[in-house]
């Protein structure tokens, strides 16, 4: 994907795509029959699961773009990495929030130490740290290099955490800690879920386009502010207006 060129008239198709994708998800999730056990609450799954999927996808893209930046040293890769990480953090938060909303009436608690949930929350904080790191400097190259190193390192930790929490859950196998497996998913629900996942993936692409477009504009503004009409930094220092005998 090439970076969108910032123009005075921003592109509108991503908004349309996002709206359509959202509408498709909404319609699909509202028209499918509810789960026999969970009832209407099961409809949360059609947003929760795609959100989590999108988060994983986003962070993998961040890792890949970060690696490309370290190789090519082209800031377009840094913009892509950052855009993807931002989207990933938003959807990770959504997945966590929706999961908690679903868990309270189902399990009676907002939170359990389910492996998936725990891993997702850890990922959330890791990439919050990534975004915080990007705010530590206005120098684009320094920011990009720091973020790229963390972007590559952070994803390596994810499978390590993934397996550790899987083993952790396995070791705490007693029935008091694990909820029973639900019934196998009906075809209609599976299809709806797949539609939602595809819609969210398309939404991700559209969001990436807009976010990268915005990032290019932000960088252009930053560069313009710093460039000071082409003057060198020292031009901002002038002769003092007071001196001996003028006080």
């Amino acid at each position: 994907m090439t970076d969108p060129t910032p123009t005075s008239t921003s592109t509108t198709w991503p908004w349309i795509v996002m709206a359509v994708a959202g509408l498709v998800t909404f319609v699909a999730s509202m028209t499918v029959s509810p789960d026999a056990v969970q009832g209407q609450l099961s409809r949360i799954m059609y947003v929760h699961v795609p959100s989590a999927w999108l988060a994983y996808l986003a962070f993998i893209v961040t890792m890949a773009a970060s690696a490309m930046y370290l190789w090519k040293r082209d800031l377009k890769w840094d913009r892509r990495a950052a855009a993807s990480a931002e989207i990933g953090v938003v959807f990770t938060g959504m997945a966590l929030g929706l999961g908690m909303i679903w868990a309270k009436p189902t399990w009676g608690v907002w939170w359990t130490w389910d492996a998936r949930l725990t891993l997702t929350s850890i990922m959330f904080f890791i990439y919050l740290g990534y975004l915080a790191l990007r705010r530590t400097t206005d120098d684009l190259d320094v920011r990009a290099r720091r973020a790229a190193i963390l972007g590559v390192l952070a994803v390596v930790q994810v499978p390590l955490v993934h397996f550790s929490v899987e083993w952790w859950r396995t070791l705490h196998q007693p029935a008091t800690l694990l909820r029973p497996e639900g019934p196998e998913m009906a075809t209609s629900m599976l299809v709806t879920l797949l539609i939602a996942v595809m819609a969210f993936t398309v939404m991700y692409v559209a969001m990436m386009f807009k976010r990268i477009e915005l990032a290019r504009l932000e960088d252009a503004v930053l560069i313009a502010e710093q460039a000071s009409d082409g003057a060198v930094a020292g031009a901002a220092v002038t002769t003092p207006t007071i001196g001996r005998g003028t006080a």
Partner: protein
Amino acid sequence: MGFFSQARLITSRDLVRERRSGEVLWVTLPFGAIALLLVPMAIGTDAPLLEQVGTGLFWAIVMLFGVLISIRQTTGETQAQRDQLALTGIDAAAIYVGRATASFVLLVIFEVVLGLVTIVLYDVPVSGWWLVPILITIVAAGLSLLGTLAASIVSTGRNAAALVPLLVAPLSIPLLIGATQALEVLDLGGSSLAWVLMMIVSTLVLAVAGVLSARPLQEI
């Protein structure tokens, strides 16, 4: 001067500086001990409950406060000191290894002392003690490598001292889970090998990442 000689030079310098300043032994260590003291006041001083949570709480305190030990030299360094260090010609990777080694030594001391405090305050059961030195060593190694690397990444940026712990804490999860579960699985009659191996893999990944990124990070 060879790579390991350079690293040893950095390690001895850092340890001498710590011996003079006493930051770890006289500030961070007591702070960790106070944290162990505060928790029972917050959750209740029910002895069986404290015995149950004591081990996990110990490792959590080690992770949260230990990061302050591993980042102290890097985040406290001035630009002038960084410049002079760069001009010594010492390899950036040797600087990383040397700093992490110094932090490792201090973290081992930190963990041992805090461990004794935990035993006293929480009356944790004495099982699987042969594993404890192994876990202390691996956690100290992993945390020192992670903290040194994270501090180098953040370096001179804004909010560096506050940001580094935010980066380190979630990335230290494999060490935390491994340490807690390695001991707990022994109580269940299982083998800790998988947990220990996971911790070792995490530590090796950090070591490789730190060495490979040392030179690019020196210029930031």
